[in-house]
């Protein structure tokens, strides 16, 4: 057996304003957890020397694009992978610039934890509030407030506490369920991987310690089963409905409903990638065979258990607009929800006439066909959708369904 085989995985995202030292923090996290290999470090040392720096600039570990290195900023989300003996990590390293807010939304959509970084000298700024709002909107389960550059404020407790207090006020305003504040210095390495010797007043964990111990899970097996059909595999006379179980569990013998037709049947057989099983759990990719011949195709959703999805053509949602082109009332768009893409009409934008790039808002849509929706608060998979421009295929808007 090898060391990382049964360790669980934490997906997390970072967010910070420009010059908060986010790339340095990520670089420090990778470097001090010994996740940077010799050749990568040599490349950074060479590049740092070429730029006339004495010490290796850890930000160069993560700024992977030519334009990012030229401008010294992060433009796009980068995904990084590292592991400690306790856990594996997938880090979505997202940019801080206001114009790249959509990339934080991208990173946060799959994250179970978000690190929001502030500069101890500046405290909570407009971008911090925006990042808190996005984390709340996307219902990222855990939030860390990393107060960085503590070395530049003499590691003072009162500075840290004032920022935590200020952030707490915003957090409750946006409906963030809670957060964990950690004072750090990414440049000096305080409380990133090792606990700091400069802040005796701080009794909490270092950042990596927290990341290693925060609870993660696939979700409860007794949640209602949701199975969007991706593809129909025909083999002889048999139809296997192929897809990924996005919540709950399915068992052979379960009564199921197919949406939107409303037809019912029973699970006759289940296979997980070629092997027959009695029960399958989210997020397994499976094949489902039904007891009755039913008209089921890509885009349909098979469900079981109490509390079925809401079938509707009127969709209300919180949204973040991602495209440079504004979204306006009356726009005809495509809506992709699970495996189903339908035409939709923008009916209302919460009273506003349009949404500009990076705007957060509320939307009402009318779709050409009914969708089987869950509230985003209940299911991040069956409560999420994207809007697509039918003309050029651009991804326009991220949507989080609000029922009731």
């Amino acid at each position, binding site marked *: 057996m*090898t*060391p*990382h*085989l*049964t*360790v*669980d*995985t934490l997906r997390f995202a970072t967010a910070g304003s420009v010059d908060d030292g986010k790339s340095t923090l990520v670089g420090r996290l990778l470097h001090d957890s010994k996740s940077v*290999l*010799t*050749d990568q470090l040599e490349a950074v040392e060479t*590049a740092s020397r070429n730029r006339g720096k004495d010490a290796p600039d850890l930000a160069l570990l993560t*700024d*992977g*694009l*030519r334009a990012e*290195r030229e401008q010294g900023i992060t*433009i*796009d989300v980068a*995904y*990084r*992978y590292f592991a400690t003996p306790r856990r*594996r990590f*997938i880090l979505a390293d997202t940019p801080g610039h206001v114009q790249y807010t*959509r990339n934080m939304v*991208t990173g946060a*959509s*799959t994250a179970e934890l978000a690190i929001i970084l502030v500069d101890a000298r500046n405290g909570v700024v407009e971008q911090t509030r925006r990042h808190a709002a996005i984390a709340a909107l996307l219902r990222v389960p855990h939030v860390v407030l990393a107060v960085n550059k503590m070395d530049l404020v003499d590691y003072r407790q009162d500075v840290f506490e004032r920022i935590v207090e200020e952030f707490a006020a915003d957090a409750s305003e946006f409906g963030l369920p809670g957060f964990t504040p950690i004072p750090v210095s990414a440049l000096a390495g305080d409380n990133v991987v090792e606990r700091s010797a400069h802040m005796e007043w701080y009794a909490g964990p270092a950042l990596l310690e927290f990341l290693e111990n925060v609870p993660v*899970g*696939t*979700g409860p*097996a007794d949640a209602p089963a949701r199975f969007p059909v*991706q*593809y129909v*595999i*025909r*083999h002889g006379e048999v139809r*296997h409905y*192929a*897809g*990924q179980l996005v919540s709950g569990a399915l068992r052979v013998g379960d009564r199921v409903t197919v949406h939107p037709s409303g037809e019912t049947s029973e699970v006759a057989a289940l296979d997980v*990638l*070629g092997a027959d099983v009695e029960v399958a759990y989210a*997020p*397994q*990719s499976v094949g489902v065979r039904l007891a009755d011949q039913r008209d089921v195709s*890509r885009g349909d959703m098979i469900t079981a258990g109490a509390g079925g999805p809401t079938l509707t053509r009127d969709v209300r949602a919180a949204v973040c607009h991602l495209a440079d082109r504004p979204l306006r009332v009356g726009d005809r768009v*495509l809506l*992709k*929800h*699970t495996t189903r893409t339908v035409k939709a009409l923008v009916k209302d934008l919460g009273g506003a006439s349009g949404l500009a790039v990076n705007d957060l808002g509320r939307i009402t849509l009318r779709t050409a066909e009914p969708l089987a929706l869950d509230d985003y608060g209940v299911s991040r*998979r069956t409560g*999420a959708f*994207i809007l*697509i421009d039918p003309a*050029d*295929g*651009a*991804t326009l808007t*991220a949507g989080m369904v609000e029922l009731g």
Partner: protein
Amino acid sequence: MSGYTLSHLDALESEAVHIFREVAGEFENPVILFSGGKDSIVMLHLALKAFAPAAIPFSLLHVDTGHNFPEVLEYRDRVVAEHALRLHVASVQDYIDRGVLRERPDGTRNPLQTLPLTERIQAERFDAVFGGGRRDEEKARAKERVFSLRDEFSQWDPRRQRPELWNLYNGRHAPGEHVRVFPLSNWTELDVWQYIAREDIALPDIYFAHYREVFRRDGMWLTAGEWGGPGPAETVEKRQVRYRTVGDMSCTGAVDSDADTIEKVISEIAASRLTERGATRADDKMSEAAMEDRKREGYF
């Protein structure tokens, strides 16, 4: 509430299969880039599982540099026959023979693959092209989406990538454009090897330690070949080596190793202080943005 967990390999496998099935559901004419390297071998294995018990609804495309390891070509032809797959071959040598491409002074053909690849994609009207690229390989690849739109010149523009949210992959594209799809995005080199071990997947022999005649260039052990090695100042010696990646012979280096089983390979990688590309790829060392520049032009 009862909780349950999947092993991380099961979670990665499930995610990759989901990606294969999305492409099968949304595209007309997808193809899998198949080099005979471990990542493309794992991709093929996942695709076979994703559509079992039926056949996979994709063909394969190999960009043949003309500087292949013979063991890898044999492997390729064997799996194609075994699973009754359709194989397309785009040949760099053809382009050189026709005078469209010119041999580089250093003899490496990796950068020459882009034109045969992109022209074949256009000619066959492939609308989705699976690549085995992993984000852990290289810092430009760390920026890659799972579904990555390429224009009619197959170009990648990292500043104009579509945001990619949840698992809602957007495969819309205009005629002439295509989407590169990376089902192994979230896998690391170690994951790939652990999965190969778990699934008992056969690999070309060059991945395991063996004795071969090699010479030293730029800190790597290269195999002699018709592309210009060894040079006058380089001497051939017989060493026990293995390959961590498979690419064009002219720029893919071997590492000293006595790992002759999968278990030993996994231990060796877990202890290595070098990345896979840093250890074995000359082409990535050409400049700080070598990979990004090649990817922009349409390289995988």
